[in-house]
C-alpha cells in the first residue's frame, strides 16, 4: 500500500527552524510506522535521523508523537492511525529538546531518574534470596514493565508548565522502590518525594496513563505514593492540606469552596505563601477568574454531603 508520512524535520547544522517534509512510500499492508520511517531513511532520504533498535516494543528507543500523541512507532501500524490513507504526522516527543529530526535530548530525563536513587537499598546481603511473596513481585512487574521510552513525559501537562517537576517516568521508577518489600529506605524516599517537584506536583490529568505503551500507569503510582507519604506522617505539604480542605468542604457543604481551598492549601500560618496567593488573587480578579467570595448553596447539597460521608465511613471500614 502507498503510505503518506509527514515528518517534522530539524537540522541544527543547517537550519534554524523546523519544518514538515512529506514522504510517500510503498509498504506492506501491516507495516508499522517504524517500518515506514526505516524505509524512508534507507531508500529515500539518508539524512533522516531517528532512534530505533528492537522493533518489538521492549527497548524504548522509538517513542515519537504520532498525529499529536506519543507512541512507540514500532508497535503502531500505519493503517491504525491513517484510516482513510491520510498522511500520518510524525514529530519528536514534546517536553524534550530536539537534537535532530525525531531524535530528542534525554539527558534531563535520565538525571531525573537518577534523582530518585533508583536502586534497591538493603542494609544486609543475605546469602540466599530475600523471602517475599510472589504477589509483591508480580505487583512490581507492573512498574518494571517500564521501558523508559519517555512517552509519559512527552504528554505530561504538569511538566509543560513546570520543567522542574520530577515527572511521571522517574516517579513511576521511584514507586518501584517504595513498593519493594526488600527496600529499607521507604520512609526517607517518601520524605524526599513529598518535597517540591515531587508527587504533589502531578496535576492528575491522566495523560501519562493513557499514552503509556506498557500500561505502567504512572499517575496511579504517584497517587499511591501520596497516600503512602501521608501514612508515613508527611502532612506538612500544600498537597496534603489541599486534599484535606477539598474533602472537608464537600463533606460539610456539599460543594467546593474554592476560596477556602486556596487559603487552606497554602496554610493559614504561611505568611509569605499567603502574600503570593494574594497577588495571584488580585490578578485573577481583574481577569474575571475569581470565584464569588461567599459560596452559594447548591440545591441538593444534602445529598452530596451524605454521599461523601458514606464514602468516608466505607474507607474507614476497609
Amino acid at each position, binding site marked *: 500500500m502507498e503510505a503518506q508520512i509527514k515528518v517534522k524535520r530539524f537540522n541544527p547544522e543547517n537550519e534554524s527552524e523546523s519544518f514538515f517534509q512529506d514522504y510517500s512510500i510503498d509498504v506492506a499492508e501491516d507495516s508499522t510506522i517504524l517500518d515506514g520511517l526505516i524505509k524512508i531513511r534507507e531508500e529515500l532520504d539518508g539524512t533522516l535521523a531517528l532512534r530505533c*533498535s528492537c522493533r518489538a516494543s*521492549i527497548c524504548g528507543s522509538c517513542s515519537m508523537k504520532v498525529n499529536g500523541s506519543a507512541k512507540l512507532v514500532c508497535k503502531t501500524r500505519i493503517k491504525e492511525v491513517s484510516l482513510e490513507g491520510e498522511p500520518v504526522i510524525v514529530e519528536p516527543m514534546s517536553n524534550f529538546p530536539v537534537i535532530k529530526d525525531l531524535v530528542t535530548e534525554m539527558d534531563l530525563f535520565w538525571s531525573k531518574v537518577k534523582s530518585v536513587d533508583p536502586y534497591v537499598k538493603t542494609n544486609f546481603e543475605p546469602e*540466599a534470596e530475600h523471602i517475599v511473596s510472589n504477589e509483591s513481585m508480580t505487583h512490581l512487574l507492573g512498574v518494571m514493565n517500564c521501558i523508559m521510552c519517555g512517552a509519559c513525559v512527552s504528554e505530561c501537562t504538569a511538566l509543560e508548565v513546570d520543567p522542574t517537576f520530577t515527572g511521571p517516568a522517574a516517579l513511576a521508577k521511584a514507586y518501584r522502590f517504595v513498593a519493594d518489600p526488600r527496600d529499607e529506605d521507604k520512609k526517607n524516599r517518601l520524605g524526599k518525594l513529598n518535597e517540591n517537584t515531587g508527587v504533589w506536583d502531578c496535576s492528575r490529568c491522566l495523560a501519562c496513563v493513557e499514552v503509556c505503551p506498557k500500561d505502567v500507569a504512572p499517575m496511579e503510582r504517584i497517587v499511591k505514593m501520596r497516600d503512602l507519604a501521608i501514612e508515613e506522617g508527611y502532612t506538612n505539604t500544600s498537597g496534603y492540606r489541599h486534599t484535606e480542605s477539598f474533602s472537608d468542604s464537600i463533606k460539610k457543604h456539599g460543594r467546593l469552596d474554592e476560596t477556602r481551598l486556596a487559603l487552606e492549601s497554602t496554610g493559614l500560618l504561611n505568611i509569605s505563601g499567603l502574600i503570593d496567593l494574594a497577588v495571584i488573587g488580585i490578578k485573577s480578579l481583574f481577569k474575571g477568574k475569581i470565584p464569588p467570595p461567599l459560596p452559594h448553596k447548591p440545591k441538593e447539597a444534602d445529598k452530596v454531603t451524605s454521599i461523601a460521608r458514606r464514602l468516608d465511613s466505607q474507607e474507614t471500614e476497609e
Partner: protein
Amino acid sequence: MSKHDLLIIGAGLAGLRAAVEGVRQGLNVAVITKVHPVRSHSNAAQGGINAALTDRGDDWRDHALATIKGSDYLADQDAVEVMCREAGEAIIELENMGVIFSRDDDGKLGTRAFGGQKKARTYFVGAITGSALLHVLYEQSVKYDLHIYEEWFVTKLIKQDGKIAGAIAFDIKTGQMELITAKAVVLATGGAGRVFEPSTNALICTGDGLSLAMQVGAPLMDTEMIQYHPTTLAGNGILLSEAARGDGAYLINSEGDRFMEKYAPDYMELASRDVVSRAEQTEIDEGRGVDGCVYLDLRHLGKKFIEERLGYLQEVALEFRGIDLSESPIPIKPGMHYIMGGIKTDLNGATNIPGLYAAGECANVSVHGANRLGANSLLDTIVFGRRAAVNSVEYIKSFSSLEVDERELSKEKSRIQNILDRPRGMRSAELRNKMGATMTKGIGVWRDKDSIIEAMAKMKYLRGQLPNVYIENKGKVFNTDLVSYLELEFMVDVAESICHGADKRLESRGAHFRTDMKSRNDADWLKHTLVQFADEELNTTTSDVTITDWQPTERVY
C-alpha cells in the same frame, strides 16, 4: 584524550556486569555504548536465566550435562563447569541487586521449565527477564556512578607494542571523534544477528565487537554455529519466547498434530532448539505447514495464566499479528536468533591479544558449543562479564602508565572523512539487504557444500562493493547514515567468517546441519573452527575441544 584503566565496549548485561565489577575492584572504569544502556539487546531475552540452586535439591552437574548435551558436545567442558558452578551465586546476587524474580508459594525463587533440560531450573521475571535484569544492572551503574559514554560509536581498537591500548570512537550526537586510552578493553558488544535477514535481533546487533577483535588479530571460534529459534514471527522475525513451551504450549502442524512426538518423544516441545527448529522445517518442507509456518498453541493455558506469566508474548501477538494467544494458535517458524560462535576467549574472558577481553554473545568461551540452551545466554553474560573484569585487574596493575601515539586519531579521522567524501554510489541498506538474503539462503537451518560456497563467493563479492557505498548525510549531528555504513563494514567481516567456519566443518553438529554430511563425526570433528585475518585474507584452522567428565554419546531427546 581520555584515559581509563578498563574500557568496556557495550552496555548490555555482560558489559554492565563487567563494569560494576571493575568499579568494585577499584579500577577507573568507563563504558562506551552506541545506545543508552537500557536500549541494549539484553532486553529481548524473555524467558529466564538458568541455575542449579543446591538448596532446592539441584546439582550444577545436571545443569552442566544438559548444557553439554545441548551443545552437541562442542562446548569446552571446563568452561561449562565454571558457568554452572557460579550460576547459583550469580542468581542470588542479581536478586540482592533488586531483580524482582518470580517466587514460589514459600516466597523463595520460583522456576519454570525450559528446553533441553528435564529439571525446571529457569528463574524468571514474567516474560521480560532480560529487560528486568538490564534495568537492574543499569540501576547498579547509577549506584556506582559509572562513567558511561552514551551514544558513542567505536570505530577501531588501538594496539600498541602488541597490546591493547584503547579505542577510537565518536560521539553520535556531535560527531566529535576521540582517542580513549585504556590499559584493558572488554568487548561486550553482543550478537551479530543483522548479518541475516530476517533475524530476531535488534537493529543494533551488527557484530561490531567481533569485527573489532578480528581487526587486531583475535580469532573467531565456531562462527558456523548460528541458532535458529523455533518460535519467531514470519516476515519481521520477532521472537516469541521459549517460555511459552516451557510453561506448556504445544507446537502443532497444519493437521493439528503435536509433531514433536515423531522427533523428540521424550522431551517433546522442550527438546534443544536446533532439534525443534529442524523438526518444524521438516514439517513445513513436507507440506504440513501453512504459508511456511507451523503453529504455537497456548489456548489450553488459559487467559489469566498467559497474561500473568507470558504477558509480553501476548502483547507481541496482539500488536504484531492481532492474535489473542488464549483464543488462537499463532503461526511461527524457525528464525535466526543467536550466534554461538564468537571471539575466542579463555575461562577468564581473555583473548590472545594482551589486554583484550570479551564476554557475552560476542565472545566464545565456549559454553554453548554447537547449540545454546535457552536461558543460558543471560547466565553467560553475568558469569563471564564479571570474570573478565576480575581477571583484568592483575593485568592492569602491571602497568604504570600508558602513552598512545596521537597520530592514530588523525589517521582514523581521515579514514572516516574519506568515506563521507565519496561523491556517489549505492546506499548501504542495498548492500546490507543483499548480505542478509545471501546469509539466510546459504547458512540456514539446512546447509550444504553448494549453499555455503555460494554464500562465501557472494560475500566476497559484496565485500568488494563496500567502497561503492556512499553516505548521503554529510552532517556531524546524529549521522545514522554513517553509523549504518560503519556497521555494515563490521557485518561483512562477520558474515564472511561465518561462511568460512561453515565451509570448514565437514560434519553435522548442533545448529550446523549439512544435508550433504548428515551425521556427527566425533573422530575428526570434536574440534573448534577458528577464523582469523592473516594479512588481508581470512584463514581457517581448528583446535581441540576440552572434554572433562562427559564423554560424547548419541544425542537423543
